[in-house]
């Protein structure tokens, strides 16, 4: 079996988080939430440390990470873009907005731009249905979007 290689401070961060949940196996999802909150994503080595600290098979951790859409093994861009594809947004044209982002950034959905600046993802309903279609860049919500607004919005972050 493999040796897990990760920088010491990262290992310590994970250890502390696991400890704050009493190193209980049942808390694995809460631990993963916090760890992802710290690192932005959950690469394999991080999952191995989590498994190690909670004394559960790493296959179980990966089974969880690959099940829940909130968890990601892909690093996020400096400005993560999330386009809402909830029904309210969909019927008001969210797909076209998503296409426009993908075109403008030349990036696949779920991936990060080559320069690491933007990542493009979709999500289901941020609950701002009154503003549909909606996209979020970082914490900021953009509502009532049309495809032609996208270049200008991207330009804000360049």
């Amino acid at each position: 079996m493999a040796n897990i290689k990760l920088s010491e401070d990262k290992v310590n961060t994970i250890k502390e988080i696991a400890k704050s949940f009493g190193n209980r196996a049942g808390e694995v999802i809460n631990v993963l939430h916090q760890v992802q909150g710290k690192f932005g994503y959950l690469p394999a080595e991080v999952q191995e440390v989590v498994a190690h600290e909670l004394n559960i098979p790493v296959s179980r951790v990966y089974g969880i990470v690959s099940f829940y859409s909130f968890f990601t093994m892909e690093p996020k861009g400096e400005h993560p873009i999330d386009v809402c594809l909830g029904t309210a947004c969909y019927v008001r044209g969210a797909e076209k907005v998503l296409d426009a982002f993908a075109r403008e950034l030349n990036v696949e959905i779920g991936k990060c731009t080559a320069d690491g600046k933007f990542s493009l993802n979709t999500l289901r309903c941020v609950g701002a249905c009154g503003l549909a279609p909606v996209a979020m860049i970082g914490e900021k919500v953009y509502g009532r979007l049309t495809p032609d607004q996208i270049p200008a919005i991207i330009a804000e972050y360049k």
Partner: protein
Amino acid sequence: MAKYKMHILICGGTGCKSSNSLQIIENFKNILAEHNLTDDVQVIKTGCFGFCERGPIVKIMPDNTFYTQVKPEDARRIVEEHIIKGRKVPELLYTNPENKEHVSDSKHMDFYKKQIRIALRNCGFVDPENIEECISRGGYEALGKCLTEMTPEQVIAEMKASGLRGRGGAGFPTGLKWELCAKNKADQKYVICNADEGDPGAFMDRSILEGDPNSIVEAMAICGYAIGATKGLVYIRAEYPLAIERLKIAINQAREYGLLGTDIMGSGFDFDIELRYGAGAFVCGEETALIHSMEGQRGEPTLKPPFPAVSGYMGKPSNVNNVETFANVPVIITKGAAWFSSIGTEKSKGTKVFALAGQINNVGLIEVPMGITLREIIYEIGGGIKNGRQFKAVQTGGPSGGCLTAKHLDTAIDYDSLVAAGSMMGSGGMVVMDETSCMPAIAKFYLEFTCEESCGKCSPCRIGNKRLCEILEKITDGRGTMEDLTELRNLAAVIKDTALCGLGQTSPNPVLSTLDNFWDEYVEHVVDKKCRAGVCKKLMSYVIDREKCIGCGKCAKGCPVEAISRTEYTAPGHKLASMVIDSTKCIKCGACINNCKFGAISIH
């Protein structure tokens, strides 16, 4: 302490927050300070008012003035005109779309007229981060009443008599559910609040948690008392940071006030609540999946029985209700089952919160009595279809529901009538569609969602829904056959009949209901290869009218795939040769139409 003479209520819900409502609050506070009015006027950040279409909302009390679409810079005018001089700011008032008159009082707005707010009673009224405001509205009195004046059996009897049914999906009677759990003896039981609202387009649970978290805390404690549980768990979506924060504040304040913890109100009853975070899995709305997720497992449903009431969280008897269901509980205890059951229809009592969305004028969150008609919701509360278009369908119940049409407009809505019409109540998403929505494409949209959210455990859902989706794709791509339509119906029926959990069993509903109600549209796609809504890209082509084209070339510049080139033909009266679209390259993104100022490009 000086008494405030006026209150300014500002919506701090996610929708309005997204439109800068926090800045509006800041500005109000600063400007009031400038005018030395800090002691006279109180600024309160509330939960959602429901009228999200016109957010951010600012409400001035006591004259009940309802300002809509307020921008941060409007704060000054509201203070200097309305607060100081008593003159309302007409431009910010809601305008009745029919007679163009300003309506200042929300009570007179059509949006609110037909609503009865029980679950949302405190939303947009109190400061959700201040338990005292909740207490002064009678909060926790229902809990007090239960603990001091009622036995657990009486609480359950009251819940049963109220006729309250679960607001999260299938509508199981809440009192009965509590009773089943109460009957099981165990050293530990759990009250679980399902706040993992995953239905895209429904956000009532989030609004309640953001606007009135104390009502959930109180209701869970009541449930705990009734079933004999001392622990409560809220399973809440991690995507709801504001709701999480408000709920945490409410729980902490309730502990400080002795309304959670040990020996609550001197009754000897102990109860406390912890949070568990969901991580983005729609299937975790199913209670067994939710419980597995809380235990740190993949959120896969398991077979029932055993029901959670027998073996739930950590194998202990557990009672799972969703947020909206809990929100009704304190009111039922305070006002009585008889009062509650006087609202609604014979088998569906009380009210239901709907998230009204889609191609409708008044998008928002509404609470209406069971038995209201779709027509009332869409045309009175919702203010009709956007841009004066024609109503086509309304989708209720999200991915588990179906599409209803004009023929259902006068059906009284309740759990049973929706099921009879091929849809379901679900969590209460209500998406209105006009003629620009293509029904096979809508069915495909929902199936894509189900495929993405299927846990993969049972074959009908894992593979069957994928195949349904593929057949729908064939149809919307113009490759469908009449046999496909037959196969679609049979497969949908089998999935409904054989899938393991509620998600799978209801996933074909969007297909079956659109097949039933929009058969002609399917046939058009299959036989005529036509999409009347102009949605299905593969059934469309973009064409430039060479007589209208002036040859400016803007379309070609904006084309992302260089599908547009210049012809050698110059139309009479124009100086430049006209443009042409290579349909083999065209991705039908519509950019050229947006760029053409001369109306020369059209879709066929």
